[in-house]
């Protein structure tokens, strides 16, 4: 079964390497990059609007290495307590008031929009495209052909989408340059991967069960 799935994956990856597909992929990558670039341009204004205590949240506290309820150490305080982070670590970087905003924006744009949109484009029609192209019967008469096609096309769709998500995350982090850049990048990459696997599986299920209206049903499940 896995041999078949990998054969389909290789074939589909090669077959889908078209100008149209690459253009859509680039659009997916560039959409968050554009939004983040605009926000970065207006960052001083946005930062000026943020109240000083607006982000005394768990996210900021965790970022600063504080337990919930623990008071923040100032520079002149007791030096005997444990240092929140080892010197030189990424989390040691000076927290930026924009960091939580970048977190929300990245999460909203990349795992929630790019991943979903990419998967919506490529996963729900995975069975219907073969039926419409009248190629299904050729695949169905191969040993474990149906399962191989399903798995192979699922892998192809999540590869395309995950690559878009990872590329977009990397570009956005480089542009935004948040205080916790590496940590934010790692979290977003992990979220994109998980979102691709999970949403891809849900949309595949819809695409198999309700292949005629898979796209409409997949959109309505959001």
């Amino acid at each position, binding site marked *: 079964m896995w*041999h*078949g799935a990998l*054969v*389909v994956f290789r*074939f589909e990856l*090669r*077959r889908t390497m*078209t100008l149209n597909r690459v253009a859509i992929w680039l659009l997916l990558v560039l959409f968050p990059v554009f939004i983040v670039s605009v926000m970065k341009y207006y960052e001083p204004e946005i930062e000026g609007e943020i109240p000083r205590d607006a982000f005394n949240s768990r996210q900021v506290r965790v970022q600063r290495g504080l337990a919930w309820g623990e008071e923040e150490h100032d520079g002149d305080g007791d030096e005997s307590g444990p240092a929140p982070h080892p010197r030189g670590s990424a989390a040691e970087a000076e927290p930026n008031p924009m960091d939580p905003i970048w977190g929300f924006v990245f999460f909203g744009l990349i795992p929630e929009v790019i991943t979903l949109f990419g998967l919506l484009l490529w996963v729900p029609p995975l069975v219907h495209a073969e039926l419409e*192209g*009248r*190629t299904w*019967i*050729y*695949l*169905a*008469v*191969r*040993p*474990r*052909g149906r399962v*191989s096609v399903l798995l192979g096309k699922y892998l192809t769709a999540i590869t395309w989408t995950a690559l878009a998500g990872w590329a977009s995350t990397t570009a956005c982090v480089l542009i935004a340059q948040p205080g916790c850049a590496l940590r934010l990048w790692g979290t977003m990459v992990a979220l994109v991967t998980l979102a691709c696997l999970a949403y891809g599986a849900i949309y595949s299920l819809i695409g198999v069960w309700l292949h005629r209206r898979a796209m409409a049903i997949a959109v309505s499940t959001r």
Partner: protein
Amino acid sequence: MIELQNVTKLYGTVIGVNDITLSLAPGAYGLVGPNGSGKTTLLNLITGQLRPTIGRVRVLGQSPWKQDQLLRAIGLCPAVDVLYPNVSALEWVSYLVELHGLSSAEARRRAETALREVGMESTMRRSMGTYSLGMRQRTKLAQAFAHDPSLLILDEPFNGLDPIGRHEMTEVLRRWVRSGRSLILASHILHEVEAVSPSFLLIRGGRVLASGPPDEIRALLADVPNEIRIRCNRPRLLACEFVESGLSESIRFLDQGETILVSTRSPVAVFEQLPHWLAKFDLEVFEMRSADDSLQRLFSSLMRIHRGEA
């Protein structure tokens, strides 16, 4: 090789195939029937794509339904056209062969051999979007036998082929049959099947009406009245001559009496006698048609036998 026992396939209330019982030994068979007769349903039952509503199907000793290993021994060339516009025939056939569990290199080697055999040597690396219908038919045939199955099933393989293409395809299939492997060739054109298969299965309305070699089928039809349609200037006089000669079983007047439809068991005698009558009575024949050679006529006759009317 193939056994069907009282197999019926229903699509809701529509009958695909109706109570078919047959047993086929290894060999080559032509499955002949008009469009919508149930050929494709029967092939889908044999390849395990459909499960019979009633009855039992066995192929090479196994039930084909969800029997993946059996698919390695079967090559199917479906009637539906295929279109992957930006993929070459070589890539597509290699891909399908690889799905049979072969390595990438071996699949490519077999795909090249199969495509060469169907005359696609010079075009196998071109994208399929640029292919003519005939080239796509050849590619479809190549994917069916590239993995070296023991049973090849072809559904309307001659569609879209020009006369040269038909001849070449016939030669490929003859070579296949000569190699001792089995073949089922479904078509609605009798002579195409006759050129490849020594034995027929005639199917219509989801039922197998007759089976056997062409000679047996002809013998079966020998006693069935043939119909000849004649449009002439003096149809009543000609009808009288038919009745007096005793050559006709029945005569019907059509087209407000301008045409007669003669039913006869001795068509050869009729065709011998007719020129004499034309000369003797100065008859002018505007149109004469015999549907006896057409598949439709063959099936009409078989249906009458099947219903016990002939």
